[in-house]
């Protein structure tokens, strides 16, 4: 009996496998395919979930037509593993004839795809990964998320202005974290401040307690924090247990720490925390109010975060580029069309730098406050049209 059940299962599995192998059905000429590769499972699944939801929302709102063609989005899960991202990109371009690839939840995933984008001359729209160097890896990479130096510089300058002299930094030990640390440390030092220590916690299985204790013992004026999207709640729980405020230590960071998706569950301990970031669900604009309302309606219990807005704007960019080329899917033309594009996103005015293909956007200084019983990052100061400082510094040197 048991054996029979399994045999049937196995047969079914083989039948399924056979269908998977059958060649893809031919598609009409007037369909543009956008291959989106995201980590939908694994440690970065929340990034994938936010972006996928934003893409669905965008298509639900704006329809599936751009440049006179039907835009078909294919979402693939790379589980956050670089060689799978690369293989999926290859298959999307070669088999599915995708005209644009997009997504990329983490820096190595985006970098793995860069050579393929260059070889195939297919635009790759980075909707999440935030290390500065990514756009330099291929002339076909365009970014709609943010860069870490871009989001870090404003909080460093705010710290300087607010009389913070001695700092300790604690970042996650990988590309974006190191970017954030470098930018913060450089800005503080340039302005005569002192960096007592630069701590790095491991990316996998993070344990913050020893680092936080060390930071507390050093008695700085402020502790600067960066962790990737999704780890903020765990970090802030341990921060709140240590009561830095009592020692007169300000806790500041990039908005990745007070990620909108998790902020509400962090508890009152994060009240008053100051961060800088490119997006807050609380951003006061009619575009954002409409966006948040529609997003929360379509995804009950999920608040849109900065990742979602990167996905939403990525789609907006692809649509606008297709409109501009009148449906021409030539990759070089699409990238040219994307360069210099500017529009009003839920996060505020943004544009694509024609020189670097990176995003130029406002960065906001925010404070965690309670509104209608919910925690929000409330913006109180704006730094307008921030370019990626890393590449701006490079350009200045030339």
């Amino acid at each position, binding site marked *: 009996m048991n054996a029979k*059940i*399994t045999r049937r299962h196995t047969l079914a599995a083989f039948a399924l496998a056979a269908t998977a192998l059958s060649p893809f059905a031919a598609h009409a000429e007037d369909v543009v395919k956008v291959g989106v590769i995201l980590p939908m499972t694994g440690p970065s699944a929340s990034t994938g979930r936010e972006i996928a939801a934003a893409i669905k929302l965008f298509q639900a709102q704006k329809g599936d037509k751009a440049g006179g063609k039907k835009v078909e989005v294919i979402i693939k899960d790379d589980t956050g593993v670089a060689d799978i991202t690369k*293989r999926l990109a290859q298959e999307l371009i070669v088999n599915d004839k995708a005209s644009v690839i997009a997504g990329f939840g983490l820096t190595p995933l985006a970098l793995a795809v860069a050579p393929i984008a260059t070889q195939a001359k297919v635009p790759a729209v980075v909707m999440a990964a935030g290390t500065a160097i990514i756009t330099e890896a291929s002339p076909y990479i365009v970014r709609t998320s943010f860069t870490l130096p871009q989001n870090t510089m404003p909080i460093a300058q705010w710290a300087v202005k607010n009389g913070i002299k001695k700092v300790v930094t604690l970042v996650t030990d990988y590309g974006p974290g190191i970017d954030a640390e470098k930018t913060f440390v450089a800005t503080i030092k340039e302005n005569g401040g002192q960096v007592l220590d630069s701590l790095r916690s491991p990316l996998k299985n993070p344990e913050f307690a020893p680092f936080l204790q060390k930071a507390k013992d050093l008695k700085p004026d402020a502790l600067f924090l960066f962790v990737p999207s999704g780890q903020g709640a765990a970090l802030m729980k341990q921060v709140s247990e240590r009561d830095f405020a009592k020692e007169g230590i300000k806790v500041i960071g990039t908005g990745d720490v007070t990620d909108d998706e998790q902020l509400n569950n962090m508890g009152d301990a994060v009240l008053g925390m100051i961060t800088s970031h490119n997006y807050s669900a609380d951003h006061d604009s009619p575009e954002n109010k409409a966006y948040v309302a529609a997003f929360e309606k379509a995804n009950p219990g999920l608040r849109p975060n900065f990742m979602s807005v990167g996905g939403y704007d990525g789609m907006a960019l692809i649509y606008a580029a297709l409109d501009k080329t009148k449906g021409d899917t030539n990759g070089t033309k699409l990238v040219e069309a994307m360069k210099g594009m500017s529009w009003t996103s839920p996060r505020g005015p943004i544009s694509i730098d024609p020189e670097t293909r990176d995003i130029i956007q406002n960065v906001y200084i925010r404070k965690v406050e309670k509104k209608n019983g919910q925690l929000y990052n409330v913006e109180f100061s704006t730094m307008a049209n921030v370019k990626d400082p890393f590449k701006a510094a490079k350009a200045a040197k030339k």
Partner: protein
Amino acid sequence: MIDTALHATTGGESRAMAWFAERAKWRWPEFALWIAAFALAFVFPSRSALFNEVAILALFALSLDIVLGYAGIVSLGHGAFFGLGAYVAGLLAKAGGGAGLYSDPTFGLLVAAAVCGFVGYLTSFLVLRGADLTRLMVTLGVALIFAELANRMAWLTGGADGLQGVLPGKILGLVEFNFMHPEYAYLYSLSVLFILFIVARKVINSPFGVSLRAIKGNALRAGAIGINVNRRLNGAYTMGAAYAGVAGALLAQTTAFVSLDVLEFHRSADVMLIVIFGGVGTLYGAIVGAAAFKLLYDLLAAATPQYWQFWLGLILVLLVLFVRGGIMGLVSGLYARMTGKGETP
């Protein structure tokens, strides 16, 4: 008296020879499997990137099957050798810059095998010191050390951003890897898998392989009949490590990219799952398990990118619950019924 004793020995020897010969014989399903595997490259060239992953994973699983299925060493850190091989081949290809000996893929494989075999040999002494649970911990610990080393040595490995600029040269100086033609990479990986499989099959069916099975059955008794248990296990672990290194090298060469991910725990865990899924100690189980695992993943992830793990998990649980000996257990049962004979190799 002496005469009969002599007779008995020679009779025993020839019986043993016959037994070895019978085991080493190729059976028709094996031919069919390999012909089908090579044919896939021509029938479905567009899916070859996936098949390439299957071939690499199969080789990796094969390496664990030697260690787990034959030597009986439970390892949760086999990914260390996979990752080491990937970095060795990746760094070589980067140093060669797409041409010359360093970028030659075959050379990369040989060096990766040598380095991993050597490291495997050294660590085998650590691993053999304890019983199963200790081994589990030691192998896991070794893998963690490797992962952290690769992370710390960012100047060499590129750290968390991954190793950029990996440019493998032409295969045997003839064919270039071409992303529009993933079937080249697949045929390359499959050929390597095939050759190494034949070697593994020979080794397993040799007296060395049989002594491994004896050790796995009961190490104490095996020692009592004159088998040098630790030496055999050192050998098997070294071989498994070298094989895993080649699998990692294939991944680095065919994807032209290496990231820290190759050293992560999930690689070691997945491959153990695959070996159990396919059938422990069968060699073919590794290949069939890898194919089933990857194809199921591909199918389920395409259907439901968010929840595929649930379905894959369910299928695995059902398989383990209802079929003893994994997929190969099922297959050899069917084969036995069809031919009326005993087990397949």
